[in-house]
């Protein structure tokens, strides 16, 4: 292959490293309305009185909207970017008289500059009727305090939701007789694990610009992963026709799932639709920490039974998930906690997976890289690590005895067949690369510090089976260069480049001959958007097929120019030639012919969806240095092996893995989310919410052990999400080996380690 599986520079790389103005706030007019939000200080309250009269007198204030400007009986909507009908409940109004978390929106302000808006915000007088709040998610189900008592709450999909029970979703699945299997096991590991509502903390906070175009339509330029879903969300929120809305994205400063939810778009859209004036909103980091869309906090009760030889015979998992005040991604994230952890254990005779997702008066949770699998894998992999320890079996050996293999049916993975899998090779590579046998379990460094190792495995999916849709359109232009239009969103991952690589491979041309346009609801072919690890596998396949179709059309026109039969020509990349190569119509000639007196569109559009979601697999091992006195723990080395099928661009796949691993390490060690007794998030800045800095990590080393996925483009599966999962169990087990104390809750803080060391 000339282009695929090559480490090509990202097409936008040089623009980015030289700081060109390509992000939302760089490209919009400076003189637009500034939109800001007045937020509730209470976790659960009704706005009794709101007086904006003095605030409206501030010079420069254009408008202030409150619940009185929003039909409280109107149809509700969800901000979750999901395929219609969304599993997430319709439980929001743009401004609701009933505010449900500390940070919920009370008023939308718009003015000519930040100063006047800030001043006006202080002059709004609000009287709240403060209600008791549900702040402990263990008590949420059937609590007399209802987060959503309203009658116009709506669930569109059969996810077991009931707002009169604070229940956002409930599900049960299983195979075999789990109780009988566990009763017959030599050993059962039985523990409850807890993970926090971690923040994606992408460097570019949430932001959107809106204006009215020449046709009177609402134009939205937003930092979003989901242009098409965003159009529907805005139409539902504003109760205006979808035909009146266009959503496009510029370069995005990171997403990680945060921008799979329309966290900020509705507010400037509301302002611009009402005032017909351009407006923008830019969330502060504070807002991005306290009123956004973090990972679902989950508690996972695992019962894992095995033989004395370490063969896992059954896994019973109950997951309780805290979706917060609104149900974005609540019903779907929880499913991955079981369906993308249990299937790793291919010899299990039975499993049961039960889940409840509950409403509380915390900020709404949402989509974050890993999407529930991260939480589930922490629990299941930690249980297996404990099993290995209990039985005196090496953690790698116990995995080798248990792992799912290519060709196996995976009952807990919706009964799908494991079509491509190099998990066995991943285990071997990581075992050897980290020097496991010399380092396991712990070495005393003789200076008060110990170095310990731990490991974990992971899987994810590649798109949502029979739901996600990827599309591509390709056309040939003057001189024979191509334009690839996509609806997938490059959020820094490099999908514009890798999709162009796939097109260039099929069209046998240099990467520079393929320009990429995306994503814009008016001009892009329909795509669900960039989430669920779908872009390479689903949209990539659409690109491959689209390029094949365009090639056929080019050959038709080329054959016509040469006066040959279509079957007597071959596509040679830069030309269409006769079979013996003596007659040539260059691409430039063909493109020119298509633009003069032509009745043939040299353009192709392909839409693709997959009936399977082949899992990528991964193994990771952490070497952690622990100072037993101070509790300081640093990952000095992380070794990983990834099976993402064919890496379309090994450089970009590697950086995905390295970046995901460090996010996972942050989740294991420092990224904490706690609430005070009034329901206010405590870690409300990058000062308190500690994402890893470069001196917090030693080295991360990633290798690829590729299987070949026949249904993916050139054998590819996904990479984006699986990479965040392994550090959680690996780091936790290393800390156990260092301190001889097991932690069942993340993050494992320095204080906790220091106390354990005493």
């Amino acid at each position: 292959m000339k282009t695929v599986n090559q480490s090509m520079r990202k097409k936008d790389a040089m623009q980015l490293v030289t700081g060109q103005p390509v992000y939302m706030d760089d490209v919009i007019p400076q003189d637009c309305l500034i939109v800001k939000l007045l937020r509730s200080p209470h976790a659960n309250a009704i706005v009794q009185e709101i007086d904006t009269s003095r605030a409206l007198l501030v010079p420069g204030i254009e408008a202030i909207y409150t619940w009185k400007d929003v039909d409280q009986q109107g149809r509700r909507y969800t901000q979750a970017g999901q395929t219609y009908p969304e599993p997430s409940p319709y439980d929001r109004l743009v401004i609701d008289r009933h505010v449900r978390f500390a940070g919920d929106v009370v008023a939308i302000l718009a003015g000519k500059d930040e100063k006047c808006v800030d001043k006006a915000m202080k002059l709004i007088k609000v009287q709240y009727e403060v209600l008791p709040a549900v702040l402990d998610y263990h008590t949420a189900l059937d609590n007399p305090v209802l987060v959503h008592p309203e009658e116009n709450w709506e669930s569109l999909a059969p996810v077991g939701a009931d707002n009169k029970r604070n229940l956002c979703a409930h599900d049960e699945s299983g195979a075999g007789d789990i109780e009988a299997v566990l009763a017959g096991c030599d050993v059962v590991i039985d523990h409850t694990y807890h993970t926090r509502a971690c923040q994606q903390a992408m460097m570019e906070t949430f932001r959107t610009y809106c204006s009215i175009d020449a046709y009177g339509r609402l134009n939205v330029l937003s930092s979003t992963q989901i242009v098409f879903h965003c159009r529907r969300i805005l139409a539902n929120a504003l109760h205006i026709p979808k035909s009146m809305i266009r959503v496009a994205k510029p370069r995005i400063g990171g997403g990680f799932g945060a921008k799979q939810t329309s966290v900020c778009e509705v507010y400037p859209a509301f302002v611009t639709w009402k005032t017909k004036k351009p407006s923008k909103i830019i969330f502060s980091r504070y807002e991005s920490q306290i009123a956004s869309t973090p990972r679902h906090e989950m508690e996972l009760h695992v019962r894992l039974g095995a033989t004395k030889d370490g063969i896992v015979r059954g896994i019973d998992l109950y997951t309780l998930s805290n979706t917060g005040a609104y149900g974005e991604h609540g019903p779907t994230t929880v499913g991955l906690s079981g369906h993308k952890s249990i299937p790793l254990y291919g010899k299990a005779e039975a499993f049961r997976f039960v889940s409840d997702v509950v409403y509380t008066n915390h900020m709404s949770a949402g989509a974050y890289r890993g999407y529930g699998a991260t939480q589930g894998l922490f629990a299941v992999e930690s249980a297996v690590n404990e099993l290995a320890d209990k039985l005196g079996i090496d953690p790698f050996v116990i995995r080798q005895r248990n792992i799912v293999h290519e060709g196996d049916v995976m009952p807990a993975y919706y009964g799908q067949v494991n079509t491509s899998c190099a998990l066995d090779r991943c285990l071997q590579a990581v075992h050897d690369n980290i020097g496991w046998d010399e380092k396991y379990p712990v070495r005393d460094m003789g200076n008060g510090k110990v170095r310990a190792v731990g490991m974990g495995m992971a899987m994810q999916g590649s798109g949502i089976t029979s739901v996600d849709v990827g599309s591509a359109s390709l056309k040939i232009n003057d001189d024979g260069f191509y334009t690839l239009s996509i609806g997938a969103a490059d959020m820094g991952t490099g999908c514009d480049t890798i999709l162009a690589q796939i097109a260039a491979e099929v069209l046998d041309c240099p990467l520079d001959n393929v320009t990429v346009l995306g994503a814009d609801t008016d001009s892009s072919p329909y795509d669900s958007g960039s989430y669920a690890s779908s872009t390479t596998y689903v949209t990539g396949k659409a690109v491959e097929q689209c390029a094949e179709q365009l090639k056929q059309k080019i050959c038709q026109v080329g054959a016509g120019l040469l006066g040959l039969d279509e079957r007597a020509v071959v596509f040679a990349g830069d030309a269409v030639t006769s079979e013996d190569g003596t007659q040539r119509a260059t691409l430039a000639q063909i493109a020119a012919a298509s633009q003069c007196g032509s009745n043939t569109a040299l353009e192709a559009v392909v839409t693709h969806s997959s009936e399977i979601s082949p899992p990528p697999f991964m193994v990771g091992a952490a070497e952690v240095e622990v100072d037993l006195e101070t509790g300081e723990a640093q990952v000095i080395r992380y070794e990983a092996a990834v099976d993402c099928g064919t890496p379309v661009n090994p450089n970009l796949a590697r950086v995905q893995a390295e970046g995901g691993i460090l996010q996972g390490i942050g989740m294991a060690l420092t990224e904490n989310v706690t609430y005070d007794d009034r329901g206010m998030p405590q870690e409300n800045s990058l000062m308190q919410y500690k994402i890893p800095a470069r001196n917090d990590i030693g080295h991360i080393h990633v290798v690829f052990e590729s299987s070949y996925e026949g249904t993916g483009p050139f054998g590819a599966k996904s990479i984006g999400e699986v990479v965040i999962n392994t550090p959680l169990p690996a780091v936790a087990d290393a800390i156990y080996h260092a301190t001889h104390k097991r932690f069942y809750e993340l993050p494992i803080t320095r204080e906790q380690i220091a106390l354990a060391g005493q």
Partner: protein
Amino acid sequence: MQITFTLNHKKVTAEIAADTVLLDLVRSLGCKSVKRGCETANCGLCTVFLDEKPVLSCSVLAARVNGRSVTTLEGLQEEAAEFGAFIADQGAEQCGFCNPGFIMNALALFRENPDPGEDEIKEYLAGNLCRCSGYEGQLRGILNFLAWKKGKEAAQ
């Protein structure tokens, strides 16, 4: 109030409020490479040079640059492209939002210490957060750049 200063080698006069910070001033003057990532001086995205030394422009009052010299990545395009190409060759620019601040500070490091070791690199750039890359690709890019520069200088 009115201030006059040098921005990317050009004299500029600007009307500012007393509480305007340098970050907002340079952006309003067209230097869009300078980004805001937090409000607590933690992320490093807004790094610019003030009299050739790196500072966080979110934490410098615009009034303080009166009579002084400010440089943003817009004024260092050749250097940015020369070094940035090594980051691009690793795919480590990723979303790119942290790149200008990170590259400004890396250039400052190379000026201060032309031959830094790995620990010195990590220490100097510790205040430049990146959520995408895990830093490893940035480190590879920096080390490759330094090796290339050394080779180039040796050849001269």
